[in-house]
């Protein structure tokens, strides 16, 4: 086909009548209301926390306060140390996230391709999934040392099994009639996988990405708790050991922000995909 396909003109949503205009206005108002309430909830929580701490209703030594967290953050930025810790944790998380997501998907592809292998490995995967990965902490440190590699391995272990199970389920749940359709076109196994199984599992892959964002942060922080000399997890452990709750809270808030940013990046991928 040489000519570029003609795209049908689809009109944008525009009000058709006064009732429709009202409906659209209500939708917009609802959206704005939800956003305002979300912001207000945050402001209220921060305000209440600050008020309770300032009036000594709660002891700032144990619960810190927003202003103390802000001061701590400013001092960490001024000393320049915070970026090193943020950078290390972020690097460990991204490496773990990428290896676990793509590694887990690759394993799922292998198991879909060879159903006998899947049946052989199934009980081991189930056991590995149920196992609390923190139990493997000492072994990981023994095998991989106490540096970044041990933390990344912990992150991968926590994320990879779930990725494999979810992606394998997605591959196996493909409509049997669609597979038959491709077989009736004389498609080989690779073509069935490439043209149908893989694109059919894209939505599930996006869900896995979203879950893995959370899981990889859990893995990294857990790894840093076990053994680290830098990173936000290290700061949290260090802060709690020297009773510096402001440091613990600042690191936790930073973790929240970073996790939210990573989640938003995945949402952006989803948005681009669904266009």
């Amino acid at each position, binding site marked *: *086909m040489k000519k570029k*396909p*003609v*795209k*049908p003109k*689809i009109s944008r949503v525009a009000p058709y009548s006064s009732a429709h205009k009202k409906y659209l206005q209500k939708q917009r108002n609802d959206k704005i209301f939800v956003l305002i309430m979300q912001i207000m909830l945050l402001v209220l929580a921060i305000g209440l926390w600050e008020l309770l701490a300032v009036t000594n209703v709660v002891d700032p030594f144990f619960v810190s306060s927003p202003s103390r967290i802000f001061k701590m953050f400013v001092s960490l930025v001024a000393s320049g140390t915070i970026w090193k810790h943020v950078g290390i944790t972020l690097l460990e998380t991204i490496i773990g996230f990428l290896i676990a997501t793509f590694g887990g998907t690759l394993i799922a592809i292998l198991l879909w391709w060879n159903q006998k292998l899947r049946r052989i490995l199934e009980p081991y995967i189930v056991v590995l999934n149920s196992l609390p990965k923190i139990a493997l902490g000492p072994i990981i440190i023994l095998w991989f040392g106490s540096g970044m590699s041990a933390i990344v391995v912990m992150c991968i272990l926590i994320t990879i099994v779930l990725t494999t199970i979810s992606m394998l389920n997605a591959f196996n749940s493909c*409509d049997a*009639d*669609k597979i*038959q*359709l*491709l*077989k*009736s*076109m*004389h*498609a080989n196994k690779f*073509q069935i996988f490439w*043209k*149908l199984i893989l*694109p*059919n599992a*894209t939505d599930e892959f996006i869900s896995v990405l979203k879950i893995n964002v959370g899981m990889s942060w859990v893995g990294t922080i857990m790894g840093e708790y076990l053994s680290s000399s830098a990173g936000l997890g290290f700061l949290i452990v260090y802060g709690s050991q020297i009773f510096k709750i402001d440091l613990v809270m600042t690191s936790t808030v930073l973790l929240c922000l970073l996790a939210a940013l990573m989640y938003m990046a995945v949402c952006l991928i989803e948005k681009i995909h669904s266009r």
Partner: protein
Amino acid sequence: MSKLLSFKDVNFFYQTKAEEIQALKDLSFDIDYQEFASIVGPSGCGKTTILSLIAGLLEKSSGEILLDGKPIQKNDSRIGYMFQRDQLFEWRTIWQNVTLSIEISKPKNADQKKELAKELLKKYDLYDFISSKPRALSGGMRQRVALIRTLVMEPSLLLLDEPFSALDFQTRLNVCDDVYGIIKNEKKTAILVTHDISEALSMSNKVIVLSSRPASVKHVQILNLNGETPLSRREAPNFGELFDLIWKTLTNEKETC
């Protein structure tokens, strides 16, 4: 008319953990060139199995299946299969859906087949939608796309496995007319598997009634209904009479099973 497809004493057994099930027993029938034949039978009697055997998706246990007088081959490109529901791939555009079989089989005359796809899309009012995703199309349009996807490889024999079963009654009547019109225009031979007697009567020249499992041919009814389209054939004077005949043959079958 000469025979395009022949089933001669075909037997087929399914293997399950518990037992061996005979799905087809000494099944014999012929389909002529440019004939539109329907296969009706009790639920689960093996109608789809017959189509799967023709398409090479299953292998017969014994007997002969001949296409153009020669034993049917596993990857025979002369056969096009249209499944229950349209089975369009939602992530692909209409053009990508229609040319899917070209992408897969990579024929030498791929450009020619793409031209044919373009012509068919234009002829059946779908060309404006080639860049759209299937979700933008109505049920009837989706079925037309599915049929064009099958026709692109220029099969001699079309297998239609209850292709209208997912549609509501009114859409179904219109789509029947559309699909019938396309098949007749393109001078194709077709086998329709359906559980709907009136659909079978309105679309075919021949109705093959099967027995319950293991399926064998119980009755073959040659039809000569007046009317250009399936919808108009439903109004033919002897439509009701033929319906009763097929219905009684099927009901007797159900009573005996």
